[in-house]
């Protein structure tokens, strides 16, 4: 049995009287693509925020690559190889696409208390940025300011930024959010490639994408895990059908 790359143990997070994360445990194995699904308000984003360090849990523990990271600030988690994309696109709007990615590469290339040399002329940073841009299909868009990129391109850039930190694990918070059909298909194809290289935790509403991509699926309802397993097992799980899929009528028609 391989050690899990990410282990979440009995995580609890309350907002006032509401239990947003209710005694949640979860393992993500190295190399797998683990999807987390659940109806709105199931606490998916709350969970992601605790995994990335934006939120601190009330109790429980998070282990990443054998280390307890429960109280680690987000910048330290990034250093350990935990990268994230945001549900609502979160980039540096005043910078070009290449700058965004180069800054991510720079964060993982020694310290940045260098005050004299021009950062945009550091060749290996630019090359790392270009490589990540190529990876997500933005090879020719490097010089374009983020504010002039289309929504779909910004979602791809989010991925490039995460990749440029050379992560062991990607936490993707609804990468398909707001994408059209063709853009979604491109994103699925891209994730299919990326999963060969890096462990991925995918939070997603697009059921078609989830069932096409995931090795394992964890279903959250009211902050609790009600089921976890292979896609087929999830599809046929009675509790999941009742609690979640039933509301949406059919698994695959949801988009």
């Amino acid at each position, binding site marked *: 049995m391989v050690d899990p790359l990410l282990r979440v143990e009995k995580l609890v997070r309350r907002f006032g009287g509401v239990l947003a994360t209710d005694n949640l445990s979860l393992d993500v194995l190295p190399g797998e693509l683990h999807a987390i699904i659940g109806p709105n308000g199931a606490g998916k984003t709350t969970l992601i925020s605790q995994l990335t360090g934006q939120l601190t849990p009330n109790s429980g523990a998070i282990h990443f690559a054998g280390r307890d990271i429960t109280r680690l600030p987000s910048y330290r988690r990034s250093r350990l190889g935990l990268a994230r994309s945001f549900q609502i696109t979160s980039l540096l709007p005043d*910078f070009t696409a290449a700058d965004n990615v180069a800054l991510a590469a*720079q964060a993982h290339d020694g310290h940045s208390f260098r*005050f004299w040399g021009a950062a*945009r002329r550091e060749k290996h940073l630019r090359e790392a940025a270009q490589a990540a841009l190529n990876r997500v299909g933005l090879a020719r868009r490097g010089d374009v300011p983020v504010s002039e990129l289309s929504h779909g391109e910004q979602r791809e850039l989010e991925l490039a930024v995460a990749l440029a930190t050379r992560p062991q694990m990607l936490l993707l918070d609804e990468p398909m959010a707001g994408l059209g059909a063709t853009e979604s298909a491109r994103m699925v194809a891209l994730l299919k490639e990326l999963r060969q290289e890096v462990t991925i935790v995918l939070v997603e509403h697009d059921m078609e994408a989830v069932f096409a991509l995931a090795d394992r699926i964890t279903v959250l309802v009211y902050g609790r895990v009600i089921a976890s397993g292979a896609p087929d097992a999830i599809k046929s799980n009675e509790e999941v059908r009742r609690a979640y899929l039933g509301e949406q009528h059919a698994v695959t028609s949801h988009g």
Partner: protein
Amino acid sequence: MKLQINVRNVVVALVALGLLLLPLYSAATGNIFILTLFTRIVIFALAAASLNLIMGYGGMMSFGHAAYLGIGGYAVGILAFEGIGSGFIQWPVALAASALYALVIGALSLRTRGVYFIMITLAFAQMAYYVASGLSRYGGDDGLTIYRRSTFGGLIDLSNRVQFYYLCLFCLFGGVYLIWRIVNSRFGMVVQGIRSNEQRMQAIGYHANRYRLVCFVISGTICGLAGALLANNTDFVSPAGMYWTRSGELMVMVVFGGMGSLFGPVIGTILFLLLEELLSQFTEYWALVMGPLLLLIVLFARGGIMGLLGRVGRG
């Protein structure tokens, strides 16, 4: 970086050239007043440029920048009063004192954001103002007269108007050059990234406040140098120079010229102090004109004068 010929760069080059040649004009026409006025302008331009580093590039709205002018000035004044006249001691002390003050104030205020940051920097600067007022040995409220300008072992004579002007100009150009290098460096990119989206920068692995703090200290140190120059220029330091209105004026100079543009604060300072000089000859209510002008710039020229020039250049 390619040098482009556009309206903005031409204006910057002309202004820089004008500043360089000003003593010649002053000598040729015998107009000493203009040299005195521009010495003051150049010093304030350095202070405004330092404020621009945190305000324009770092997104930190410090409303207490006059404190550094005062600290730099008092370092020179107090040491001179105590019989230490060498600039080789006075000036490093001025810089170190400003840096230390910035480090302490920054470490405390950078826990806050937005309006709270503005208020806390303002509060600290006002505290510095009252501390200076309480220095009874050094003149208290009335301030401290400096009877001898800093000496540099015969290298340069600060009492010579032209030499002093060029020293100030050298500091200004040096300061702007330093800021230019910083802004384009790894460090500068990170600071600007944090201004743009702090959460994102944390997520890719930057400890945002550490970079902010260092930027804050650099800015305060440069402003402390302006303070040392200003004290030598006026032969006097007083708490009044640290009052919050002075901090406000520095902010206005930066906004006039264009936040986040390298040379903007220099242009903004020239404009502000020339206007002040000009208008105060006609009326003591010169602020009545300055206010609406600031309004117009904020409403219609977000990038200040430099932003306007950029637009002229494009179309």
